[in-house]
Each structure stands twice: as C-alpha cells, then as structure tokens.
C-alpha cells in the first residue's frame, strides 16, 4: 500500500471508531449524551495527538527509538503534586483546589521542572542529551519515592482520590479545561510546523546537522519546549500515559518506512488516536470500567516494548 493510501485507511479507521463512540448504544435523551460524548472523543483525540507528537519528536531529538518524554520525570512531578495536595488537604481537596486551578498549577509546575532541567543541561552551550535524560530520570525516581511514601501515610479513602489521578481516565474531563488544552495543542503544532524539515536533519545526528548549517541548540531547545508543553497539558488533562508514546511511535515506524517527519507526525497522531479510541472502547465495553485506559495501554505498550528490545539487534 502506498503512503497516501495508508494514511487514508488510518483516517477511515479513526472516523469509524469515533463514530462508534458517539453513536453506539445512544440513550433516548440523545442530545445531552451526544454532547458529552463529543467532548470525550475530542479530548481523546487531543491527548492522543499531543502524546504522539511529543514522543515522536523526542525520539528524533535523542536519536533513539525507545525513549519517551515521560522518562524525563514530568509525570513524577505531576504525581508528586497530586499526592501533596491530598496529603495536605485530605478530603477537603476538591473544595480547596478546583479542577481548573489544579490543571494550571500542574502545568506550571511541569514547565518549571522542564525549564530547570534545560538550564542545567544547556549551560555553557554544551548540550548533552543523555545527561539530560539521566538527570530527569534520577529526579523522576526521587519524586516517585517521595510520592510513594506520602501515599502510604494517606488515609485509604483519601488514597482513592490520588488513585484516580494516578491513572489516566477520560471519564471526568472538565469541559473548560478541554478548550485550554486544545488551544495549547494548536499553538504548539503551528509553531512546530514551520520547522518540520529541520527535524529531518536533526535525525541525521548532531554533527551532520551542524555540518548542514542548522542552528542545532536553538532548534533542540524549541522542540524540547514544545514537548514539555504537550506532555504537561495531556498529563494534566487526563493523567499519565507512560507507554503510549513508545507504542505508537514504533508502530508508526513499522507501518511507514520513511524519514520524513511531514509524514511521520500526522501518521503517528492517527495511530495514536486509534490506539486510544480502541483502548477506551475495550475499557468500557469489555472490561466494564474495571480498569483504566492507562493501565491497559501501559500493559500492552510495555509488553510490546519488551518484545522490541529483545528482538532488536541494534537500538
């Protein structure tokens, strides 16, 4: 199948799945239900695209196909914040911190974290990608440790509040937040779009990119910033989806054997949408909400990742 055909097929599948969500077993008062469902489907699409874009670009920046931005510690920051709020406010949490406050503060914190990381790494003009990752990893583990212990001390009933935050879920999306998230996403995509050819060059490696006259550090910083925004927004909107990125990027590479980001990025977004729509459908209809989408995706994505590692000769 040629590339345009493949993209067309993916678009088709996405539309079908979206349609399923919107119209399957629609109750009698369908206007209200349809509106709610539309928001849900739209947020799923937004989150899928944010994660797809950020993971793919991250893999290009790190010249590596098995890393994802979550490794940098973003989700750990988010979880720590959520844990802290419940730890401090207990069951008064929802009264003190409204959903929208939570949303913006979470994003703010994650951006702050990203900012600090980048300053640390790009100081003195030396950009060492792996060092960045290692620091992010250590900080992530650090925050995770603190979170775990705080969670332990929290009353089991209150723990349920955090448990809700720990796992991504599309069931409780605040419609106001949705519009902010959409705005963030569109802005990031527009800014990133203009430099899409630069990504192709970065994929050749730092030295080749510099040789070809690219402002390497500047471009990398810009994209890392965009990635930070997208990851922060999607995490704050629905929660951590750690392995979704790895799953969809590698599926995309398998399906589309090209180096062009102008194809890879849209393709990855579509694959991601299908994964999320499909996954959520399974959660609702097959498991009857007994699990959450992030758990399923981490499970499947995780196993796929192991499979990739064990079979790959080179990584």
């Amino acid at each position, binding site marked *: 199948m040629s590339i345009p055909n493949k993209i067309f097929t993916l678009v088709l599948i996405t539309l079908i799945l979206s349609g399923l969500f919107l119209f399957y077993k629609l109750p009698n008062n369908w206007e209200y239900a349809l509106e709610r469902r539309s928001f849900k489907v739209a947020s799923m699409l937004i989150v899928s695209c944010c994660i797809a874009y950020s993971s793919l670009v991250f893999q290009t920046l790190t010249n590596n196909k098995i890393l994802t931005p979550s490794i940098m510690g973003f989700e750990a920051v988010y979880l720590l914040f959520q844990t802290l709020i419940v730890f401090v406010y207990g069951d008064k949490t929802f009264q003190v911190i409204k959903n929208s406050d939570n949303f913006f503060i979470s994003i703010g914190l994650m951006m702050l974290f990203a900012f600090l990381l980048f300053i640390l790494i790009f100081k003195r003009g030396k950009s060492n990608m*792996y060092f960045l990752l290692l620091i992010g990893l250590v900080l992530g*583990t650090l925050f995770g440790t603190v979170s775990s212990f705080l969670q332990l001390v929290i009353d089991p009933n209150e723990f349920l509040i955090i448990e809700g935050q720990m796992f991504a879920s599309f069931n409780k999306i605040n419609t106001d937040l949705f519009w902010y998230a959409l705005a963030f996403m569109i802005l990031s995509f527009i800014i990133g779009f203009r430099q899409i050819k630069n990504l192709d060059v970065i994929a050749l490696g730092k030295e080749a990119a510099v040789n070809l006259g690219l402002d390497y550090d500047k471009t990398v910083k810009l994209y890392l910033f965009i990635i930070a925004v997208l990851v922060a927004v999607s995490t704050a909107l629905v929660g951590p989806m750690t392995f979704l990125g790895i799953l969809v990027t590698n599926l995309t590479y398998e399906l589309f054997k090209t180096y062009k980001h102008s194809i890879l990025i849209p393709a990855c977004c579509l694959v991601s949408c299908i994964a999320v729509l499909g996954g959520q459908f399974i959660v609702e209809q097959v498991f009857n909400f007994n699990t959450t989408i992030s758990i399923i995706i981490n499970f499947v994505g*995780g196993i796929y990742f*192991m499979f990739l590692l064990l079979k790959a000769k080179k990584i």
Partner: protein
Amino acid sequence: MSISRIPRTVALILAGVGMSICGLIMQQMTQNRFVAPTTAGTLDAAKMGILASILFASQSGNFTRILFAFGFTFLASIIFLKIADRIRYRNIIFVPLVGLMFGGILNSITTFFAYKNNVVQNVNAWMVGDFSGILQGNYELVYLSIPAVVITYLYANKFTVVGMGENFSKNLGLNYRTVLNIGLFCVALTVSVVVLTVGTIPFLGLVIPNIVSILYGDNLRKTLPITAVFGAIFLLICDIIGRLIIFPFEVPIGMTVGIVGGVIFLILLIKKQR
C-alpha cells in the same frame, strides 16, 4: 532492647551491606556504573512477586512471600541482563534508562492486576522501606542475605570477568553460565529478603559503589569490604536522621535514603559532566 533495638540495628546493617553489594555485583556484571536494583527493574520485580504472593497465597507466612519475590526477581534479572547485553555498546547511560523503563513495565503489569483486585495500596505498603516495624520474630529472614554476601566476596573477580562478555570469559576458562547464575542468585536473594523484611531502599545500590569507586578506585578485592562498610554506615546515618528530624515521629528509611541518595547521585553526575 533485644526485642526491637538489636533486631533493628542488625537489620539495618545487613540491609545496608546487602543492597550495596548487590549494586556492586550488578555493576561488575554489566560493566556499567549506573546499574543497580533501582535502575534494572529488580525492585519492581520484587513488587510483582509480592503481588503474586498476595493474590495466590494470601495467608502464607513471610518465607513463602520471599520465595515468590525471589522467583520473580531472578527471572527479571535474567531478562534484564539479556537486554543490557544488546545495548551495552552504545552510550553508557542507555542501560540504566532502559532498565528504568523495564522496571516501569513490570510496574504497569503489577498495577494492572493490583487494580483489578483492589490491592494497590496494600502492595505499595509492602514496598515501603521502613525499619520501625522490625521486631524480634519478623526480621530473622534478613540473615539469609549473609550467604549471598559471602559468596560475592569469594566470586568477586569472577563477576568482573563475566562482565566483560561471554567470549572473554570462555577465553579465561570461566564457566560463563554458572558464574552468571550465581551472581543473579545472590542479587535476587538479597533483594527479595531485604524488600520483604525492610521494604525498598532506592538508590543505595547505585550511590554507595559509585562513591567508593571515586574514593578508592576499582580494585574489587579492596573495595568490596569498603563498599559493605560504607553501605551499613550510610544506612545507619540515614536512619538516625530519619528518627530525629520529626521527633518523636519517624521518617521511613526508604524516603530518607531516596532523598539523600538521590541528591548525592545528582551531585556525582553533575560533577562528572564537568
């Protein structure tokens, strides 16, 4: 005194020695100074084992739980080594990064089943590194880590050779498979035993061997005892800090070590980069 103080101190020392030595073994066997139970999925595998024991043998005693944890940890370590082998020739940072993701996967699988059975907080409770619950009668199993440490001392140099690769080992007449399995056995045993008696103590296996290596070099014969001693002392100090900071309450050791260890490790990394 003999009911709680002595057992607690003994458990502290053994845990400190055990985890540091584990880190050292793993680093020798992968020839990578960033590998440790924290960054190789070992701790997460132990968590999986605990979940399995909760689900399938919930009434059993500690010994059975350790068996479960041991089994999972051993298997996970084998898988991790296979993976590490594939990617060792790239940047040195890859291996712990991948190890962390590996740990994350194990964690997700564990969480999947834990969530279904509503035991998430329960499982997490087992994982907390906390010495305050140590009483005579429920800590003795930690003594099982002693044979592991002894074996390590005897096999120290062999682990290093194994770390250089299968061909290298064969060339020197070493039975690669056997030594590898013995090393993994020691690691799995120690980690399971410590995790079950005390809980997770992150970063210990990572930070101590690295500090020792910076100060004393890499001669295994020399650094092994030093690593053990440093490990015990570090843990004792963290324990004291944990008990004093919010007196009369106690900060769980896992948290103290996690923070202190994490910060030290960060400083090490940044210094190295300069």
